[in-house]
């Protein structure tokens, strides 16, 4: 079996999706597309980590309800987040008692869980699969940098971790829902970037690698897609990505965008280089993009989740930051 694009001949459909976000995202340009926008980033819990688990729980609950299903109908679930050992996903999903596969892809986790859920349904091992990912600004700061109380400044190239979760439910092809038809898992790429405050630059090379590999393996060209959406490269990272693929002869200037750029209004909100985190691509896709796909305003898209695979230990040991980008192709056409 060669390293080709995984094609889903049975075209699993996304029969339901949900997105839940925190306060800052509720003040952004996409707020009306999210199912639930909490004005309280603590979600009535007493710690940030518990808040994120609650957000995961709530998001999956809404997605399952919107699909007219019950917990018992879901055969397999895939979820991940940025906390140590993906605790937020574990604690958020445990009450649902669904067979659970924890995943880690840093900020690319949503594309990864969507691809894996689609793979499970397409292969026939299950009828209904769930894919989710989440992140929370406060738990991510404590995880990767410093607790909020430390009050440190962040430089202009830093991104704002999105407080958000997105969940998608995949089933056998229905003919009346958007379908996931291709999945290209990424390869870990390390270009020697060491600045933990500039994730966009660390992830852009792996994103370019996945896109270049995709177009070299596929019969399609960039113009066949309405939108090539990257996960969270941010303004700086997205520009680096566009110039890297241009050098390889791929022009996406007119039909590419980035979830980290879409989720906030940089003129009104202080978010430096844009949004990041698993919740960024998860909430933007499950809220905003799904709406566009259902209305067929977008027909054929690529979602490329981008992740920076560092941890606090590797940074302190002066290791560089490797990146990975997973690609999923979704179509609104039958």
């Amino acid at each position, binding site marked *: 079996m060669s390293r080709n694009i995984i094609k889903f001949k049975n075209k699993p459909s996304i029969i339901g999706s949900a997105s839940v976000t925190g306060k800052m995202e509720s003040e952004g340009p996409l707020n009306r597309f999210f199912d639930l926008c909490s004005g309280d980033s603590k979600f009535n819990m007493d710690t940030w980590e518990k808040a994120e688990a609650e957000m995961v729980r709530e998001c999956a609950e809404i997605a399952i309800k919107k699909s007219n299903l019950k917990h018992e109908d879901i055969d397999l679930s895939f979820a991940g987040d940025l906390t140590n050992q993906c605790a937020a996903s574990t604690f958020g999903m445990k009450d649902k008692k669904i067979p659970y596969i924890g995943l880690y892809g840093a900020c690319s986790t949503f594309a990864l869980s969507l691809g894996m859920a689609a793979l499970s349904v397409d292969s026939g091992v299950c009828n209904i699969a769930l894919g989710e990912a989440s992140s929370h600004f406060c738990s991510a700061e404590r995880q990767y940098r410093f607790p909020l*109380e430390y009050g440190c400044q962040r*430089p202009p190239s830093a991104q704002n971790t999105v407080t958000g979760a997105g969940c998608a439910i995949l089933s056998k092809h229905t003919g009346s829902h958007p379908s996931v038809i291709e999945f290209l898992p990424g390869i870990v790429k390390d270009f020697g970037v060491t*600045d933990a405050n500039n994730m966009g630059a660390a992830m852009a090379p792996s994103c370019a690698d996945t896109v270049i590999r995709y177009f070299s393996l596929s019969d399609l060209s960039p113009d066949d897609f309405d939108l090539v959406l990257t996960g969270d490269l941010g303004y700086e990272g997205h520009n680096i990505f566009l110039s890297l693929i241009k050098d390889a002869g791929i022009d996406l200037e007119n039909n590419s965008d980035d979830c980290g750029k879409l989720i906030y209004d940089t003129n009104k909100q202080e978010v430096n280089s844009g949004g990041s985190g698993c919740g960024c691509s998860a909430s933007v896709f499950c809220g905003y993009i799904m709406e566009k796909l259902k209305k067929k305003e977008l027909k054929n898209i690529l979602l490329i989740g981008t992740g920076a695979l560092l941890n606090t230990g590797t940074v302190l040991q002066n290791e560089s930051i490797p990146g990975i980008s997973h690609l999923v192709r979704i179509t609104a056409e039958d």
Partner: protein
Amino acid sequence: MEYIKCFMFGGFLCVIAQVIIDKTKLTPARILTSYVCAGVILTGIGLYEPLVKQFSCGATVPLTGFGYSLAKGVESAVDSNGLLGAFTGGITNTAGGITAAIVFSFLFSLIFNGKPENL
């Protein structure tokens, strides 16, 4: 006039740090520790004392001033106790500042909680 001189010098030290944050990849933690070390070294070679005389709290309040306290503490402890003073003098002289930091941060953490906004 004295207040203005204090303010200008203290502010000047802060501006240097801000420029370092904006223009380099140094983390805030590294900048803070560099300031303390710089204060110790400058005091040791006699360059900081004149600044303290000129600008008083503009020189003692910023972190370089903490380095100054450490160094002055070591100086006087070595004068009275010899080599042992190199170990005891620094922390003894800065005990007030360190304890205040712990006590006040603990008190404030009891009253206030971290918020995600305005970071």
